[in-house]
Every structure is written in C-alpha cells, then in structure tokens.
C-alpha cells in the first residue's frame, strides 16, 4: 500500500496494462488534464512512445479509429477531452461502439475505454462543463464508470481495459489530486459494484464522482446534528448495482440523490425511481434530489457556484427528510 493521488493511480493502471499487453494503445492528448498532474502522463508517454497516438481535433474519427482498432484485436483507451467534446463523437460511441457486439450476433467485440472529464471545473462556461453520464446510460451496450478514489480507479480501470465491452469513463478533474491508499500490485475491481463509502442508519445519500465528496462532507455536517448518514458511491452507472443501493435505502428508509448533471432524466432520477419501485414500502419520507440547476453553466464564479450542488444543500435536504 502506498498513498497516491488519483492521477497516479490512473497512471498505475495504464502502466500495468501497457506492460502486460502490447496490443493496448492510447489515443489522445491531455489524458490527465492541464491542472498540475499532466507530468505523470508525459512520463508515461515518454516511456511508451509507440503506444500513444496524438490525434487531430477530429473527435468523431478519433473515436472511430479506436473502435475499428478494437474490433481488429487491439485494446484501446481513447481520450476525448471534456464531456462536452464527447458530443462530437456521440454517433460513434452510441451507434457504432455500443451496438456492434449485439448487432453482429456476438461476433465482434469492442474493448475501448472512452475517457473524458465531466462537470463544473471553474470557468468552463456553457461549452466545457458537460456531465454526459446519464445520456450514455440511456443507451444499450455501453458500460459507464465514475470512480471516486485512487484505489477504485486503479482497480476498475484495469478491469475495464481487460474487459471486452466499450466503457464510457467519466472522470472529474477535481478528483485527480485526491489522495488515498493504493495497493502496489495489480488488482481488479469488478465493474458494476457500488461501494458504501460511509455507513449510517438514518438516511442514504447516493452519489457518484465528485458528488461523493460533497456527500461525505454533508455526512460530516449531519453527524454534528446527530444524524447518521450512509454514503453510497455507485461507482458504476451501467451496470447499476441495484442491490447495494436498494439495501441501503431499505435500511435507512430515506434517500437523497446527488448529481453534478442536470436533474431531468439523470442518474439521480434513476436512483429515485429505483427507490420508488423497489423500496417504496420502506420509504419513511419523500425522496430528495440534489442536482445542478437546469441552465447552461454560467461563467461568472458566483453564478457557477450558485448552480452547483453543495454539501450544505445535501445536508439540509437530508435533515428535512429525517424531520
């Protein structure tokens, strides 16, 4: 075990796979963003120069090249920049990568990771702040991952690369500096398992990606008021770990969902729907959803802050439910 940043854990996973599989290739620039962690990526790129491809600003064909190469026996990691840019490749991700295996009657496999950064980043404004996870989840054939901590990202990324399915990998730049204990050896965390990041008994807070950090901070606030909150990190949107999530809701009887995307048809909506479907009898209070306000992300810092979910909002919602 070593304490590492999230960015270092990503590099660990990539290094392990680059060493293990000569057919594993990375397409894209800036896989660790531009916020102070990029040197790790540069080092990796230096050590495995022939395994990196720097594409033109052509997200559609870049994604296609990754898909076609994966069909032909490579394992691919395609970095698409921000979630906003991924819209340029939605056709390739959804209509090509997502359907190929099933549509070919199982003949074709598409082991590609499509990597992107989502969410509010400070000044991203209307065109650089998209959180597209729910949009991807509303499609078939694509797994959708959103880990939160160094340990999870290392194990999940390795499992994703070794899998045979296209995976949408939605990271958050704000997580790259998060530190945590990471096993030194290679290991895999199966895709599709949620993780209870904090146990509690009065209310379940179900979240993913950076929203898990806000939820944990909210749980701290709640603890001061004597409310015991359970924080469930779904980690994987597709497949969704319904069992872990509903078990928590049934146990606490109260649910707050937290999302960095817009609320309409969001992951939070899905989890609230799950509660209404599978834990309705155990619900002691209405479900509460916290999400980004439904307006294009404004640039001005106080406006961006105003539309963002915050620990205080989560705590207040939970408190209302506990009553």
């Amino acid at each position, binding site marked *: 075990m070593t304490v590492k940043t999230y960015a270092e854990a990503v590099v660990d996973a990539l290094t392990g796979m680059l060493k293990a599989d000569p057919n594993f290739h990375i397409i894209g620039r800036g896989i660790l963003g531009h916020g102070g962690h990029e040197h790790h990526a540069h080092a990796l790129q230096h050590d495995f120069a022939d395994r990196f491809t720097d594409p033109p600003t052509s997200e559609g064909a870049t994604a296609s090249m990754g898909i076609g190469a994966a069909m032909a026996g490579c394992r691919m990691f395609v970095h698409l920049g921000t979630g906003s840019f991924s819209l340029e490749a939605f056709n390739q991700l959804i209509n090509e990568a997502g359907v190929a295996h099933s549509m070919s009657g199982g003949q*074709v496999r598409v082991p590609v990771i499509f990597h992107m950064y989502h969410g509010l980043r400070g000044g991203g404004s209307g065109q650089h702040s998209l959180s597209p996870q729910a949009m991807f989840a509303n499609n078939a*054939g694509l797994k959708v991952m959103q880990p939160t901590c160094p340990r999870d990202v290392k194990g999940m990324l390795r499992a994703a690369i070794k899998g045979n399915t296209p995976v949408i990998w939605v990271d958050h730049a704000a997580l790259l500096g998060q530190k945590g204990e990471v096993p030194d050896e290679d290991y895999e965390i199966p895709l599709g398992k949620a993780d209870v990041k904090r146990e509690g008994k009065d209310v379940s807070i179900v979240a993913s990606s950076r929203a898990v950090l806000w939820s944990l901070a909210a749980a701290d606030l709640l603890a001061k008021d004597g409310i015991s909150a359970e924080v469930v990190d779904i980690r994987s949107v597709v497949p969704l770990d319904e069992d872990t999530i509903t078990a928590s809701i049934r146990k606490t009887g109260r649910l707050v969902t937290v999302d960095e995307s817009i609320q309409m048809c969001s992951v939070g909506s899905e989890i609230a729907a799950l509660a209404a479907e599978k834990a309705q009898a155990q619900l002691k209070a209405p479900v509460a959803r916290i999400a980004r306000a439904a307006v294009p992300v404004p640039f001005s810092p106080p406006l961006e802050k105003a539309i963002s979910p915050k620990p205080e909002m989560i705590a207040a919602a939970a408190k209302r439910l506990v009553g």
Partner: protein
Amino acid sequence: MASQPTTAERISLLERMLMMRRFEEEVLRVAQTHAYVGRQHLHIGHEATGAAVASVLTPEDLFHTTHRNHGYLIARGADPGRALAEIMGRKDGLNGGRGGPWHLCDREAGFQSTSAMVGGSVGLAIGAAFAMKKQKKKAIGVAHFGDGTLDEGICFEAFNMASIFELPVLFLCENNAKEGQRPSSMLAAKALRDLPAALQIETVVVDGRDADDVRAAATDAVARIRTTGKPVFLQAQLERWPGSHQLKPEFPTGVTDLTLAWEEGRIEGKHADWTRAHDGIRLYAKKLVAEKATSKEEILALDRKVIARIEAARAFAEASPFPAPSTATDLAFA
C-alpha cells in the same frame, strides 16, 4: 502493373458476380413477400467492382462495408444461405438475426462489422488499418462506401487521419451517381477524388463496370498499400441500377437474362440503356465469349449452377426458424 488474370481467374470472377446478382434477385423476391420488414439496398449493378476487389484481397484483410453490403459478403465467400437467413431475420443468419440486411457481418470472411450510418465504414476501417499497422501485419483495412458518404464530416476526418498517420487502408468508393449530383452525393468538388487528393492520398478512378479493369486497378492499389503502408482512394464509376429503391421491391430491368450478353438486339424497355451499357455482368459475359475465354453454353451452365446454389440458400433460410423471443436481450455486453 497488375499481371493479366488467367482464364480460370476470369471465369471465377464471373461466377462471383453471378452469385452476387442471383443473391440480390432472391433478396428482392423475399422483399416482395411482405413477410419481410427490412428495406433493400441492393448491390445490383456493382458486381464487377465488388467481385474484382474481393478477388484481390486476402482473407486477413479487414473489410468494413455499408447498408449496401450484401454483394461484398457474397463476394468474399460468406455463405449465401446464412446471409439470406440474416436478411430474413432468422436464427441461422450470419448475425443470428440481430443485424438484418444493413448489417451483415461475417468475421470468418474478413468482415469487422457493417455500419449503416453514412460514413461509419470509413471511420472504422482506419481503425482496422491502425491495428494492422501496430501489429505489424501485412493485412490492410478496407472501407467500402458510396459517393454520398463524402458529404459526411467523418469521412473527411478519416481520410485526413489515414493520410497523416500513414495507415494501410483502401478507400473503395462506389460512385453510383453522376459526379457531384443527386441522388446520393452533393459534394461541391469537381470530382470526388479531389477531396482525398487534397489530403495527399493517392487516387485512382476506374470504370466500375469492367471487372478486368477494376481487378487490375485494385491489384495495383492493394499492392501499393501493402508496400508503402499508405492509403489509396479507389473510385469505381457505376450507373445506379433503375431498381435502386429501398421501399419498392421491383425488377424494372427484369430478372437477369444472360443470353442478352450476346443477343443484344433483344434488349428493350424503358431501361434498355442500363442493361446495354451499364450491367457489368452482361458486359463481362459478352467479353469473355468474344475473347473466346469461354463459351455461351459454359456461361449458362455456370449461371444454372449459381441459381441452384441460391435456391438452396433460400430453402435453407426459409427453413431456419426465427430466434426465440427469450433470447431478445442476449448480447447486450460482450
């Protein structure tokens, strides 16, 4: 320059073309039954190009095709029974009935996947070429597509990437429209080739009705791709078959009558020009007979053999059951 094909090779080319044609005619008959829910984008009139290109590829070359894919599947050796079964949505179809007519796929025949998104095949094929290059294989990627595909930005992007990354890929464009005109293409270029040429891709234009010409051009192009590792754009000029309508399953030029190859005077009707001037099969049969590479009788015998195979294919496909509804949600993930 490509070596001359042997007589046996030429007859085999004709046979391939006949298989393709008789297969599509059967698809049209199936479409006429109303039991069929798909739309047909037939390869009729493209056979000389399809058969010739397929004949110069190895089984390892990775092919990506479009909604107009059937001909290539047959040309590269996919089982016609399983292909027809797929078009009919049957269990024994190449894709187990999950793909249908726009998506025939046969890995064993060197197909990667068949995309009906205009431009899809071009983007995917550069990926196949990327993989071949990285794996240091001799095989190449092939993208089949139509003239209208050049309208799509993804096609441009993929050309550009193939050029800058020097990817071994054949861009095989079947132009079944008058240059720059509807029905399919609205490209502002004087000629389609101007676009790949601007991106420094070598371009070749060939008469797609002449199987020998296409074979020679494709042999050269593929050899160059294998040696240089760089893309080539090969454009086959074709004339759209008058029956090309995705919703009307009709035979406006009649069921193919091979005797018209040498009894030209009998060609008649509204679409006589297409049969006379643009039907690559008729033209090739005529040429082979004129050059005494084979005889009329041998050709007709070959055709009967092909028809019998296609009839067997239809019987196979019809005998195949529909997949069980309980399997509907299979294969969501690999």
